């Protein structure tokens, strides 16, 4: 095969290849060639032959400098990656925010903790640069090398040594060079010819490459077209391992029974998946023996608490579950009204609630979240829900008891609504208003009470009737320093 190509008329002579049998004669021949003035030549050997670099005038490669540059870049990238991902310092640079882990108060970025990863990134980058840089500088991979067509050359990876004088060299002369090579001890000499007939790429390859690239780009294009879009469908969940767990969830029956299986494998005899608290148990953080703080009822009237529905912890120890459940079925407001004595409500804020600017600000914020929807931001009873519900009620589409204005004469004032009663209203609801004890913690309820009193005392009203602008404007006008008159 190789010989046939060498004699092809459509081929171009690109050099003379001389074979040597040992590395010493190769180095000697290289030295002769350099001294004879050849510049474009290369030696080929099965292993690196020492002393050949100066013999054919190879300059030291710049590869180490390239690797050094890559390593220095990797320092920046490695440290930058860690600063960006583990703090919020570089968030402005990237679409995804950093995530600062708070661990034992340690700094989010500290050199010692970030050395290992930086080091590994430096080594990885340098190694890949070395690897790729070496092949690129060597112009490899190159599969279409005319040398590979010479069968004798196959022994270059085994035990023979070759010197190739290139035809491009100024000194090159087909006959004279061959004589010289013979003189320098070549065992055999062959022409290296490049076949010109199959030099070009087949025409279909560029077209196929472009088409292939377009097809490969479609999936990423489809993904990026959805970037930042909203979607009504839930996220595709490939492995729903967290959705279907083999466990008994709270507030459910034991799964086997719920699935109607014959084999009943109950967690507990009462079909529950979890245990109820032991009688008299007080959940962490829910001890409510301070009647003024927790119920807004004076200590002297504390016995009245036990008749109220909210007294769960006191009730549970004294009564059986049935009583508690039946009373919970009743409207809490009715239960409250039946036993209400206006003197029982505290008229001053209980010990532990200090009315100050901070409390009022908190109260305002909570009021705007929980109360303003019905009562309006200024407490005039013109919240958006109220307006909408009244409009529906006027058409007969709904029944609705209007939310009260907090400024009404029969709502305002210690005689009608001492702070304790406002607190109780928030806690247990009143009339059509539902209880908020589950949503609002005790301290926040008192903060809202303070804010409600501030609204009432200042008597701020919403200018005009535009409900949309109502709240914000009037809320801003509230003087946070206003102290409830007590």
């Amino acid at each position: 095969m190789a010989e046939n190509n060498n004699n092809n008329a459509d081929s171009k002579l690109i050099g003379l290849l001389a074979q040597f049998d040992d590395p010493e004669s190769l180095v000697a021949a290289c030295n002769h060639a350099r001294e004879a003035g050849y510049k474009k030549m290369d030696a080929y050997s099965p292993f690196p032959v020492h002393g050949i670099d100066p013999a054919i005038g190879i300059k030291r490669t710049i590869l180490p400098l390239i690797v050094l540059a890559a390593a220095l870049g990797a320092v920046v990238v490695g440290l930058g990656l860690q600063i960006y991902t583990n703090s919020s310092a570089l968030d402005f640079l990237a679409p995804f925010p950093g995530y600062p882990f708070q661990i034992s108060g340690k700094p989010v970025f500290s050199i010692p903790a970030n050395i290992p990863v930086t080091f590994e990134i430096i080594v990885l980058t340098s190694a890949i640069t070395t690897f790729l840089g070496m092949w690129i500088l060597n112009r490899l991979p190159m599969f279409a090398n005319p040398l590979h067509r010479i069968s004798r050359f196959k022994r270059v990876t085994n035990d023979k040594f070759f010197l190739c004088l290139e035809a491009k060299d100024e000194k090159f002369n087909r006959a004279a060079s061959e004589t010289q090579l013979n003189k320098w001890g070549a065992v055999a000499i062959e022409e290296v010819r490049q076949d010109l007939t199959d030099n070009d790429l087949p025409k279909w390859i560029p077209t196929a490459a472009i088409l292939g690239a377009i097809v490969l780009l479609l999936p990423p294009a489809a993904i990026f077209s959805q970037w930042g879009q909203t979607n009504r469908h839930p996220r595709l969940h490939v492995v729903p391992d967290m959705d279907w767990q083999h466990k008994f969830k709270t507030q459910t029956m034991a799964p086997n029974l719920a699935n109607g299986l014959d084999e009943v494998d109950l967690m507990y005899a009462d079909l529950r998946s979890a245990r109820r608290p032991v009688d008299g148990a007080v959940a962490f953080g829910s001890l409510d023996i301070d009647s003024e703080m927790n119920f807004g009822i004076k200590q002297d009237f504390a016995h009245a608490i036990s008749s109220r529905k909210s007294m769960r912890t006191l009730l549970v120890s004294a009564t059986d579950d049935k009583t508690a459940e039946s009373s919970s079925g009743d409207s809490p407001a009715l239960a409250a009204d039946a036993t209400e004595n206006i003197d029982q409500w505290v008229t001053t804020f209980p010990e532990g609630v200090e009315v100050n600017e901070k409390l009022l600000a908190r109260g305002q914020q909570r009021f705007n979240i929980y109360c303003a929807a019905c009562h309006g931001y200024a407490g005039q009873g013109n919240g958006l829900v109220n307006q909408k519900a009244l409009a529906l009620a006027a058409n007969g589409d709904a029944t609705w008891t209007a939310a009260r204005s907090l400024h009404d004469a029969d709502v305002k004032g210690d005689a009608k609504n001492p702070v304790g009663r406002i607190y109780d209203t928030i806690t247990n609801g009143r009339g059509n208003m539902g209880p908020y004890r589950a949503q609002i913690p005790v301290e926040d309820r008192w903060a809202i009470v303070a804010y409600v009193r501030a609204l009432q005392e200042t008597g701020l009203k919403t200018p005009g009737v535009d409900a949309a602008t109502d709240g914000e404007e009037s809320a801003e006008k509230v003087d946070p320093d206003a102290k409830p008159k007590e």
Partner: protein
Amino acid sequence: MATTVDPQGLDNTYDDASQRTPLVLGGLDYQGVTETACGFWEAEKAPKIWWILLLMAMSLLGILGGLVNHLLMSGVGVWGNNNPAYWGWPIVNFVFWVGIGHAGTLISAILFLFRQNWRTSINRAAEAMTIFAVVCAGMFPGIHIGRVWVFYWLFPIPTEHLAMWPNFRSPLLWDVFAVSTYATVSLLFWYMGMVPDIATFRDRTKSRIGKFIYGLLSLGWTGSARNWHRYEIAYTLLAALATPLVLSVHTIVSFDFAVSQLPGWHTTIFPPYFVAGAIFSGFAMVVTLLVPARALFGLEKLITLRHLENMNKIIMATGLMVGTAYGIEFFIAWYSGVQVESYAFWNRAFGNYSWAYWIMISCNVVIPQLFWFKWCRTTTWFMVIVCIFVNIGMWFERFVITITSLCRDFLPSSWAYFTPTWVDIGMLVCSFGLFSTLFLLFCRFLPVIAMAEVKGIMPRDGHH
């Protein structure tokens, strides 16, 4: 060929001060080296024993696949890991395999930088062993993360689903970077070193498929002096990069333990002690593999007794380092005066797990002392037995460190005794199937000996 002490015999373990001891025996020339190294690859049919070994290895690999599938379908509860030993055998196996994976790069890189020419015959096989051991090692933390399908959360890849990044101050994340960097760099180093030898395969193969595949893999290598020049520089650079890397990997693996506060783990001696242990076990594995391999593939003239003896000397040296570390740990436990630390070590030696501790001591400290005797380190069948004991001992070392400390943590009410399940045992045994399958295929289809490097260190008439 220079005259040698005993050129036709294959014992080159005697030093003759008047000349360099040859590392290639049997009077082989360049052609002879090529033919010896390619002999097994060029054989028309692989010997029966290779097929039998491959069949056994692939059976184990198949079982491993089944076990991993069982684990993924059922969850990590199929292992013995439970409170308080959340790190059970998977992490023990991980450290064991990644330790074994240290010898290859050590031989390729550190011995290269120290100009230890005897490395050339064994480095290729050792590097291959490194990569296959790292594959086994990487599998264990990979399946230990529970939800394998979101393994990419280990890496700093932005995901809207998770909406957070890895914690770069955690040794477990350092481990991700260290092991994946090590695997990548080892692979590059291995492949780059192999290209000239794959070119030899390309030029010798007779099959069309072989011509295509080896042609592709050898990248058109011609052995040009200009290519060799850059190649050698690149090889030195990679060796210089791989040297600190190989030391950093087991250092960082030891940080998984040392940076925590558990008694028995929280010690500064861990990094050097782990690295010495890794070299110890890695060399033992190289000897265990190469002794049968050189007999099976007819490589006695290239992987000589002297090579094996040198490795046995390193095994003995690193074994002594490991033994010293065991002693220092006990000294510090006493000298620190910390009660929990003292208890942790007393418990290792005399507590529930004393059986494991004394297996470790006998295999790692006592048995390698046999290598003081020349007969022991130059008799092939005997050294394999010693090296197998070393690897048993090194597995138990990781077991002792991981399990005894976890089972005796700060809260006595949670103390427990760890019991592995059949899945634990199966996965450890079958991971050898994965390793052996890869190694056997490597021996048959890729150059086992770095021919170009061996030829480069052969003495030439009138020059040495």
